[in-house]
């Protein structure tokens, strides 16, 4: 059975690993070194993000789904299930080869991309990062470290499960993509923030830590919201102004409007005293800024937890595959 499965997966496996070798060579040749303008690497940086984020889905769709549907569509399941091998073993071998192969491929690509992007990701100066995201931003987080291993394993068993359920290659491919994309949207939005309890703190609003003020379009009234600077590299979950009772204030009190320099004013003529007084008034009224975030130091713990989460998620999907297999004919 192992031989047969290997024989069937040989071509896709070899082509993907050849592509992986090419990607590695390209990235090795374009890695940024100290002092280089990071703008040069922007294309490769984005390409790396795109590749690591997309690979698990691609493997699920082009390795996983056809592994099942090609047999069902060609009727060869009638041949192989009538050798002296149970269909449970047939599936177990397919998963036993396919899942590690997919996980390894995603792991290797992630390793290469993480290595390539390391000078950018770890650069301490915010300007140095330019248009690049921070390690903890969801789209970057998912394209670094070990989490892609979990994504690939999960996506692969998902592809197999959908294939067993739907039996048609093209429909199963489409449904696998949609379901996987939904999971990859839901996890950073609803699950990852709570995988580890986020750090919460309430800080005074000062002219030193203010990061931005959002005002209504063209309005001269009170601004909508303001944000303060979070610790470097942290993944900020909430950044909101609270009053003395700890309740969220929105829109902001009118007094904040005074903190803003008039739009046309020359920066050299800034009335610093007025701005100082404004922030002091904010503090006097008990307005403070509440922050919750996952600090940058949580990157590796979160990667491990995310890997575990996706491996755990794969278990019921795998169980479903074996359960459903009996009813396939």
């Amino acid at each position, binding site marked *: *059975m192992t*031989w*047969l499965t290997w*024989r*069937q997966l040989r071509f896709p496996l070899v082509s993907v690993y050849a592509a992986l070798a090419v990607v590695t060579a390209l990235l090795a040749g374009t890695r940024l070194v100290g002092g280089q303008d990071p703008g040069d690497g922007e294309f490769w940086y984005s390409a790396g993000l795109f590749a690591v984020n997309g690979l698990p889905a691609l493997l699920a769709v082009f390795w996983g789904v056809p592994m099942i549907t090609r047999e069902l569509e*060609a*009727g*060869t399941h*009638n*041949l*192989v*299930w*009538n*050798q*002296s*091998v*149970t*269909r449970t*073993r047939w599936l177990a071998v397919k998963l036993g080869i396919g899942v590690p192969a997919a996980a390894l491929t995603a792991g290797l690509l992630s390793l290469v991309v993480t290595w390539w992007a390391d000078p950018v990701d770890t650069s301490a100066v915010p300007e140095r990062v330019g248009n690049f995201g921070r390690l903890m931003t969801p789209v970057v987080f998912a394209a670094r470290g070990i989490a892609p291993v979990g994504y690939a394993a999960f996506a692969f068993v998902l592809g197999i499960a959908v294939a067993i359920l739907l039996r048609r290659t093209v429909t199963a491919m489409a449904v696998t993509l949609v379901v996987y994309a939904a999971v990859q949207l839901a996890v950073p939005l609803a699950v990852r923030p709570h995988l580890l309890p986020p750090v919460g703190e309430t800080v005074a609003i000062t002219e030193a830590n203010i990061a931005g003020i959002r005002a209504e379009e063209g309005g001269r009234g009170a601004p909508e919201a303001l944000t303060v600077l979070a610790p470097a590299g942290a993944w900020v979950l909430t950044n909101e102004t609270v009053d003395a009772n700890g309740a969220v204030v929105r829109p902001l009190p009118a007094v904040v409007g005074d903190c803003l320099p008039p739009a046309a004013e020359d920066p050299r003529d800034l009335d610093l005293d007025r701005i100082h007084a404004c922030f002091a008034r904010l503090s006097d009224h008990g307005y403070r800024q509440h922050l919750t975030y996952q600090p940058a130091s949580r990157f590796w713990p979160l990667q491990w937890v995310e890997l575990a989460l996706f491996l755990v998620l794969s278990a019921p999907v795998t169980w479903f595959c074996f359960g459903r297999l*009996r*009813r396939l*004919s």
Partner: protein
Amino acid sequence: MTVLRARGLGKKYRRRWALTGCDLDLPAGHVTGLVGPNGAGKSTLLGLAAGMVEPSSGTIEVCGDVPGSGPAQLAKVGFVAQHTPVYANLTVAEHLRLGAHLNPGWDDALARDRIARIGLDPALPAGKLSGGQRAQLALTLGIAKRPELLLLDEPVASLDPVARREFLRDLMESVAEHGLSVVMSSHLIGDLERVCDHLVVLVDARVRITGEVEHLLATHRRLTGPRRDVDTLPADQHVVSVSHTDRQTTVLVRTEAPVLDPSWDVGELDLEDLLLAYMSNPGTGRPPLEVVR
């Protein structure tokens, strides 16, 4: 010894029963022909026996165990599905390797011998074979597995007459040498007549009749006589089909006893007449005598 035993066996696909109320005892060491119109449930019955399909009702036991219940059971039963599927991108030799890897009882000499005799190029991908050659490859896999029971779903449909005859001869050899039991469905009554000593006739998802070919032929008679209503026939004469002309009535009956009524002209049946009569008359009730003008 029974090689296949079914009790109240049925299979429902969505809202349609593909097979229902099937009671069968097929003897070991025989070739059983499975006959019936398209959609009568032949493939479903074979699929149930191979463990490819789960029964919706009743039980089936093949070689003493539930079909598909484990590797040992799978080794005992060979199944070549309709349209004889093979892996298009695997070569002939790789198919034999597959068979050798996946079957403990694999007879490599037999497989190689058959492939050589058929004249298949071992290096050729199965996708490049003709329909008949593909069937030969699938059948070779089925035979070389050395099962106790070989289930064949219209195995010879795509073979030319020479290949068909050779295949059936090989099959008979295996039956004689290794005590192989075979259940095969076919529309080719001539082939069935040549190799089968047992028959199952399926019509409308039900077993219409089953038995030894010789016994079936000996217990069916064609009665021809003046036009009359068949309700007057003795109770031990079961009507299979009736046809009337202006003056004549022809009845096909199954009866264990000799026909004594002197008004009937009693004739023998051949297998084709018998099967056609059953397949074209699905009902079990006697059709009423129509008035013909």
